[in-house]
């Protein structure tokens, strides 16, 4: 479970200026400069410190329950006529991949001497994972969450509160993940000295996209080993992951980025249809711009106003994607597809009935595209099952009789 440190001269990793191709950077107001500069100058040395790595590995093993299983989904494989493996991030403590990153960042925050933690959350998974590690380390925790998401993800709000976090509703703009992120950044501006911002996805100003990807890279590190054991090769034919900001995809792709024989597939939230006006399919609807201090692809008007996306899944309801993914898209290294709300719902039901696993709404988007891949019976497909569906039961129940 090493954190990837030396990535060499990858075409797909961050460069020394914090860019992936023409995407990335740190478009921050001067008020954030000392904080971001501190992170930029220290994150690599902290991550490569052996005691840091020991602490990180021990917590992932004993607290999170890693390695997460790589499960051969027999009935799903029969249905799609390929060898389908599920990377079971849903079995992690707190129910999703998000905790890999929050464990890493809380250890980093400790080493930076920070006493107060802030975070944004959409579906509440990152908020819960942050509240969890703050409780574990005895740190103050404030989570910003869009007021609309607070309504649609009530169980996660209750969990955060039980874990001792303060949940602050974001009531500006579209009242979802984008606005929660704005509020977290504003909090950081107002509390520049004692606070660390645990950003939950592979987006935001450099070094966040790279730092989050490195913490999440444990996913593909494990896939390599597990696949070697099970199939005799580290490489699958496909790695399939859903993408909002892109943290689980970044982790699932990480060690395969330069193995061009492994096909990387990203599934965005198509909402009610890519061209319905209610979608979050950023690569299809977006253009280059700045969102949350990163130059990347985002959904915006002709006047440069960021638009409000739509997805049934709060975790994918984001009008941008991380800069690494924008570069993977533009360079053609990853193939980007989208799944509609209805396709994702159908896939969630299918996995529940075929494998006895209720996936998170987000992960169901990735599963929904199995039907669209040109699969051969010998193809090995790894789907990153990023989270479990407990938090989405209300949504699932509402659609049960449709």
């Amino acid at each position: 479970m090493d954190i990837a440190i030396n990535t060499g001269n990858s075409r797909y990793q961050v460069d020394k200026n914090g860019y992936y191709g023409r995407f990335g950077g740190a478009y921050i107001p001067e008020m954030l400069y000392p904080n971001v500069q501190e992170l930029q100058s220290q994150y690599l040395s902290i991550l490569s410190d052996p005691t840091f790595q020991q602490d990180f590995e021990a917590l992932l093993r004993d607290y999170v329950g890693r390695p997460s299983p790589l499960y051969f989904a027999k009935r799903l494989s029969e249905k799609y006529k390929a060898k389908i493996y599920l990377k079971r991030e849903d079995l992690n403590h707190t129910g999703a991949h998000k905790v890999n990153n929050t464990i890493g960042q809380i250890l980093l925050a400790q080493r930076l001497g920070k006493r107060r933690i802030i975070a944004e959350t959409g579906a509440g998974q990152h908020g819960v994972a942050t509240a969890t590690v703050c409780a574990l380390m005895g740190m103050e925790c404030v989570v910003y969450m869009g007021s609309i998401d607070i309504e649609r993800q009530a169980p996660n709000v209750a969990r955060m509160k039980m874990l001792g976090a303060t949940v602050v509703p974001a009531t500006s703009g579209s009242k979802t993940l984008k606005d929660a992120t704005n509020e977290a950044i504003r909090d950081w501006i107002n509390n520049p000295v004692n606070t660390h911002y645990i950003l939950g996805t592979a987006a935001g100003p450099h070094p966040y996209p790279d730092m989050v990807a490195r913490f999440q890279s444990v996913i593909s590190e494990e896939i390599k080993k597990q696949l070697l054991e099970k199939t005799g090769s580290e490489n699958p034919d496909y790695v399939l992951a859903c993408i909002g900001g892109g943290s689980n995809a970044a982790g699932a792709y990480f060690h395969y980025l330069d193995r061009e024989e492994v096909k990387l597939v990203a599934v965005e939230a198509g909402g009610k249809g890519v061209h319905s006006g209610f979608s979050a399919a950023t690569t299809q609807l977006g253009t280059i711009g700045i969102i949350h201090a990163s130059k990347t692809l985002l959904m915006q008007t002709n006047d440069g106003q960021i638009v409000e996306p739509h997805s049934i899944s709060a975790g994918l309801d984001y009008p941008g994607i991380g800069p690494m993914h924008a570069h993977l898209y533009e360079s053609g290294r990853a193939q980007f597809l989208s799944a509609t709300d209805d396709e994702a719902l159908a896939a969630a039901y299918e996995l529940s009935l075929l494998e006895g696993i209720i996936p998170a709404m987000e992960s169901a988007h990735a599963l929904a595209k199995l039907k669209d891949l040109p699969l051969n019976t010998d193809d090995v497909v790894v789907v990153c099952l990023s989270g479990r569906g407990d938090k989405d039961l209300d949504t699932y129940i509402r659609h049960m009789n449709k």
Partner: protein
Amino acid sequence: MQNRIDQLFAVKRHNVLNIYCTAGFPELNDTLPVMTALQQYGADLIELGMPFSDPLADGPVIQDSSTKALQNGMSLHKLFEQLTSFRDRIQVPVILMGYFNPVLTYGVEAFCAKCAEVGIDGIIVPDLPMAEYENEYRPVFEKYNLHLIFLVTPETSEERIRKIDSLSKGFIYAVSSSSTTGKDKDMKDQQAYFERLKQLQLKNPVLIGFGIKDKATFEAASAYANGAIIGTAFIRAIEHSKNIDETVKTFISGITQ
């Protein structure tokens, strides 16, 4: 022609009053009436906010004014339309303040060209960092004689302040505390920082902003710098104004008299 900001500081070194207002606020066509009144009643500089959907560095009052302006139909194209012949009646320097995304989408060079065409003197883009400006955009701004005005904060190191001073033209915008706009902080706590800035003897004039809201705070800030910037308090004042001219007159005389 010499930049109007430089002309201003060539003749006025003390108590320079810069007022911020959001374009298209409170009503879409209030932009010019507000600017006209600001000049008439004694603002030395006007900072005109280009509304953005996601204004990261702003507190709730300016955020709300931005949202309202967008709902009113304000856009960069609309703003330049409103500003087409504003130089017929307004002579004070005018600075556009806004976030980088709309400028990038408009096209940085097209934006600069349009600013020069209508008579804008300076630009504040809080989320365009110094390094990006230096590496990529500086020649374009300079080509059109637009001063890019940078911010410094209490956390900015002396080395960096010097660097910002060397890259800046027009003036330096000293954020009075580490905060978003509109936060109330005790001016006394900031005196050490203001004193430090004053001791640096920067080549550019310095205006202090964030938390300046009335005569007392304006004068306190002006004691350490060439003047100050008022934003949130002015937006509050005109938010529900029935008579823009009267409101602006009352507000400014409350500061300067």
